[in-house]
């Protein structure tokens, strides 16, 4: 499915992995997360014991635990109260979850459940955060608000982010750098920096950038 797939992530940057459906983006994430071990290759981390966190396509919350318990259970057993423990109050406030802490996941809308998944991922203070289409099947308005929240949290925490998506507009608006993935077996076919400041990624500027991208990587972007 994948062959000669190689890329490097720059610390504390936001990278998007783009490609058509079924080309192996999720598989790449699963390999990085250690969920898929049926591969040959190497993953090099700059230091051993780096903390990884993930946001899956589905929120994957424990339905029998409250929102707050779901987040707390992801934290390491010791140090929940110790110094250096994440400030959950602030995290919940940032994500607008302060009134939902005692609710069970079945009582949440999909948008709220995805916020909880984000809260859980950021609560563990990850060095590397992997996201697999975290805003898929949300209405555009909700997705936009969650994207803004993701950027805000990423800036606060200085985490290295790799996000998988097939939504090119989403990728261009969020990322510092785009990795294009395509082919059968798939590999990285393009590595594009997004030079625009995030505030300028709208209107005409965004349209021009997308057009250039379309010209250079039609088979990946248009798919």
């Amino acid at each position, binding site marked *: 499915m994948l062959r000669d797939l190689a890329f490097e992530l720059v610390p504390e940057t936001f990278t998007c992995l783009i490609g058509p459906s079924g080309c192996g983006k999720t598989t790449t994430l699963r390999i990085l997360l250690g969920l898929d071990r049926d591969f040959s290759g190497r993953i090099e981390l700059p230091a051993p014991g780096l903390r*990884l966190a993930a946001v899956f396509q589905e929120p994957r919350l424990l339905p029998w635990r409250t929102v707050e318990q779901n987040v707390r259970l992801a934290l390491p057993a010791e140090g929940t109260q110790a110094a250096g423990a994440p400030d959950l109050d602030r995290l919940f406030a940032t994500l607008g979850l302060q009134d939902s802490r005692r609710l069970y996941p079945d009582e949440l809308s999909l948008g709220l459940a995805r916020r909880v998944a984000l809260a859980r991922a950021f609560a563990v203070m990850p060095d590397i955060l992997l996201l697999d289409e975290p805003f898929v099947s949300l209405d555009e308005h909700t997705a936009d608000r969650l994207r803004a929240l993701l950027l805000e949290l990423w800036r606060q925490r200085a985490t290295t982010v790799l996000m998988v998506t097939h939504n090119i507009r989403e990728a261009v608006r969020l990322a510092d750098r785009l990795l294009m993935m395509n082919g059968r077996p798939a590999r990285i076919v393009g590595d594009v920096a997004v030079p625009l400041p995030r505030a300028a990624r709208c209107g005409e500027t965004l349209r021009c950038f997308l057009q250039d991208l379309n010209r250079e990587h039609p088979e990946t972007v248009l798919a």
Partner: protein
Amino acid sequence: MEGPTRTPLRLLSILGFLALWTLAAWFAASPEVPGPLAVLDVVLREAASGELFYHLAVTLARVAAAFLIAMFIGTAVGVAMGQRHNLNRVLDPWIILLLNIPALVVIVLCYIWIGLTEVAAIAAVAINKIPNVVVTLREGARALDPKLAEMAQVFRFSRGRLLRHVVLPQLLPFIAAAGRSGLALIWKIVLVVELLGRSNGVGFQIHLYFQLFDVAAILGYALAFVCVMLFIEFLVVQPLEAHLNRWRPRAASSAA
């Protein structure tokens, strides 16, 4: 769902049953078909002498011991078989064999091999129940959601945390189902065990009154124990189930 009409309907049904029973006893007009009042009379007499409570307690203790042993072993084996394909292949024929051995054969063999002891009695009952628990919990282990297991792996859940917060909640409906049917099955087998090789308990009393042809006493003991089991159902099992299902907005109310 039926709302307020449900309780009166239930009460009417019970009263109807008692009326039919009284009528049947009146027609039969024989000590072999005692009416409800005659049975109640026996229950009160046995209760006053303390006999009733002694035998109920002895039987209940045996039910509890056999139940706990069967649930514990059955759950462990069932979950292991549900998760390990090879183990399932090895043990599956044994389970089918055990499922199909008549309870009576197990009881008799236990008494012969272990002796007429309490250990033999409880072992016999547990062995009868274990394969049912195994089969139910094997289904439960197969239904475990791999997505939640992956989530737990990514967030580095400890073994204890994984078991308590991820695996066990998913198995609870299966444990509850095995427990429900188990309790009903076990107390019936316990009576047989008591009848064959114990000198106390409800089964022994029924055996005794069978020899005396005292049908009122037989029915009295049986009904008294049914009442005990109903109390357990309403005072322990249902509140416990409601508590464990509190996160599920619907199941708690529809299970009642």
